[in-house]
């Protein structure tokens, strides 16, 4: 009996050492990614402390600044988005987020309702979102979807990213290598802003009604977006479909989305509509990083305008004098320092 116990203890000890080394190797070999970090830092927010959740792909990632919103209006928010996020990922990510937070509002960017998501070509974008997620039934659901669409992918490589990144040992410089664990706490609250700008100009007849038929929705994308909205409704959380400034937008698409929102019983806010553009007063020469994304300055302007709108429309709270939210003031200090040129 004693021998058996010793053996079991030794095996368990070995497994522990192995797991530690495995995790260490994972941290050395993973590709450090801002977006995965931000998605992961979400878990650190105190339970039920976030008032607004922003979900979607890169325009919302770059364009919305929760720190600006906080400083101006006093409500808390988090941008849980990533570049070219698949609708399936947005759904899973949202469902998971709602296990940790009970927001007053969910803002969803869903321009990708028009696009077919090519799983086989978007491994990088899929992984950057999933690498930031903890293991959960939602993550497994997304992985199942991925492996169904792209037969080269395996469940294990998503659960244990080391199995995917193991070849990166070749890129490591032994002298300088250091482990890069996922970010625990973020002062940016999910906003990965971009410096630099590409001067833009509104195309002719921007957002003018035309006879051309607008592009069709992609059925798969639409399905997931409907599920996302439905999920929020079941939890009694209002949803706002948001469209952020994009030079290649069209009146037709805008109308289609508005119709869709109406069908789904949710609000729609389009930053490229004339009345909103006038209020926003963005300067295409300096506020755009490229035709579809705001840069830092643009995101500040946009967040200021959006903050006012949201506060009024949804009666969002003001926590600026509440003790539990002191950390947000400190975070804002950090943000302010970082963004100053």
């Amino acid at each position, binding site marked *: 009996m004693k021998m058996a116990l010793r053996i079991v203890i030794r095996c368990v000890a070995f497994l522990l050492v192995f797991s530690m080394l*495995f995790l260490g190797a994972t941290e050395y070999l993973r590709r450090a*990614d801002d977006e995965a970090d931000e998605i992961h830092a979400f878990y650190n927010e105190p339970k039920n402390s976030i008032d607004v959740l922003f979900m979607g*792909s890169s*325009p919302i990632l770059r364009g919305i600044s929760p720190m600006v919103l906080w400083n101006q209006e006093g409500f808390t928010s988090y941008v849980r988005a990533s570049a070219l996020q698949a609708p399936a990922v947005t759904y899973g990510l949202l469902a998971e987020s709602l296990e940790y937070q009970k927001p007053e509002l969910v803002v969803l960017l869903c321009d*990708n309702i028009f696009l077919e998501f090519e799983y086989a070509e978007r*491994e990088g974008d899929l992984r*950057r979102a999933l690498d930031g997620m903890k293991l959960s039934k939602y993550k497994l659901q997304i992985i199942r979807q991925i492996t169904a669409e792209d037969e080269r992918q395996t469940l294990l490589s998503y659960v244990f990213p080391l199995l995917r990144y193991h070849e*990166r040992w070749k890129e490591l410089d032994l002298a300088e290598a250091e482990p890069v664990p996922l970010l625990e706490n973020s002062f940016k609250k999910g906003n990965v802003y971009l410096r630099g700008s590409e001067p833009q100009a509104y195309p002719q007849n921007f957002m003018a009604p035309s006879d051309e038929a607008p592009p069709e929705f992609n059925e798969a994308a639409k399905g997931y977006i409907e599920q996302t909205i439905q999920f929020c409704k079941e939890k009694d959380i209002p949803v706002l479909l948001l469209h952020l400034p994009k030079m290649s937008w069209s009146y037709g698409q805008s109308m289609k989305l508005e119709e869709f929102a109406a069908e789904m019983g949710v609000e729609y806010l389009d930053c490229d509509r004339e009345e909103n553009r006038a209020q926003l007063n963005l300067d295409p020469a300096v506020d755009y990083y490229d035709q579809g994304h705001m840069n830092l300055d643009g995101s500040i302007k946009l967040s200021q305008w959006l903050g006012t709108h949201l506060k009024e429309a949804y009666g969002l709270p003001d926590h600026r004098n509440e003790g539990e939210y002191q950390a947000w003031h400190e975070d804002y200090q950090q943000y302010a320092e970082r963004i100053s040129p």
Partner: protein
Amino acid sequence: MAFTSVQFVVFLFLCATVYFLTPKRYRWVTLFIANYIFYFFAGPRYLIYLLATTITIYCGARQLGKMSSKNKADFAAVKLSLDKEEKKAWKANFTKKKRAVLIPTLLFNLGILSVLKYSGFVGSNLNALFARFSLDITMPAPSFLLPLGISFYTFQSLAYLIDVYREKFEPERNLAKFALFISFFPQIVQGPIGRFSDLAEQLYRPNGFSYERVKFGVQLILWGVFKKLVIADRAKVIVDTIFAYPETFGGTYVAVGALVYCVQLYGDFSGGIDIATGAAQVLGIQLEKNFERPYLATSIPDFWRRWHITLGAWFRDYVFYPLSLSKFFMKVGRKGRKLFGNYIGKLLPVLIPQFIVFFLIGIWHGAEWKYIAFGFYNGTLIVLGILFDQPLKKLIEKCQIRTECFSWHLFQVLRTLVLIALGKIITRAPGVGASVYMTQSMVRNWDGDILCNGGLLKLGLDTQDLWVLLLSSLVLLTISLLQESGIHIREALAKQNLLFRWIIYLAAIFSLILFGVYGLNYNASDFIYRGF
């Protein structure tokens, strides 16, 4: 279910757990079920072939067993009243009766194997021949997907049948137990080919859980996976490139390709065998050795005693001896001695069957002209080796070359390696023509520079991968040399201190994880950011 897949690991774990939890009386039943589950994963429609062989061999063997017992009883009764001539006649008569059962069963099973394996080849070549002579006949040239392990389980069951015929042991009465022997999942994929006298007891007895056995088994599996994923699959990249573009990669590249292919093939095959052996060991069953450091062989016959040992043994016991000891070849021997003198005459009953055996080993590998060529190549080398064995020995003595020293031993090993590598060109090249072309190119366009001037980097592996290949091959070589000098690695390892053992285990596991050739060949460093 590939041996290096996660499914296999899970399957083995579940199988072992259930096996050790099963009450002792029924443990063999667990194995039996596991085997069929494993085979089912390979393709349910192939089960019919396995069943056909299992049932026919079982029945044939039981029949032979019954005949043998009856004959023993009958003969014992009349033995004393018969004279020498009558005894001989009785024996001959009985042998004829046994043959009447053995031959059809043999032919049926060999027939299945041959048709599935070779009918396409034979058919298409006959058609080409007919076309050449403008004959308007078309033979069917079907191309069959071979059932998993058919070459292996067929040979294993034929050995069993012949052993029963030879009255080596009584046939197995229980059909399910017999089916277990034929379908044992670690062996069925690529051997080793087992003998009933070795395996039966091990398979049918309730093997107990032994921590040491399981530990050793798992270590062996790990080593096998290492050989396959780190060494063989890496070497494959180079080999595939060279053999796919022989016009681009001529000269020294051919030699590189042949030698690296030797490494690949050994890593892959022996790695798979190690996984099989380790898996069986976990279950308490010791399989026969299939490899004994083949590239350290000092001669071609020595090589074939170290490479795919169970196949060689099978051919020796069931083809070579029956042929060479048959009346026909005994007569050939006597005639030969009269015609060619004592020396060659004595060798004839060895030479011809040996050539036949190696020819068969060649075509056993596959139904293509290049395997026939390979068979000829091996057969010729063996025959020449036998013929010139004595004269060469005398020559060496005359030249006063020392044969007990390291330098001679090294010479023998290198010489054997070169001959083996040349043979590998024949099997790996896309066809006989290609292998001729490549060998010529190797000789004519030899440019050793490519080894130093970065020529090796054009083959699909970058510098770091080449280093991993080289170092892991050195690890393999070191282990082989240690084993050759009689050290049993796992036992020796078990005697070392805990810290050292753990370092070795962790190093092994992490080299697998980091350096294993698996996953997508995708550069995980650049995620292309496309603004949306």
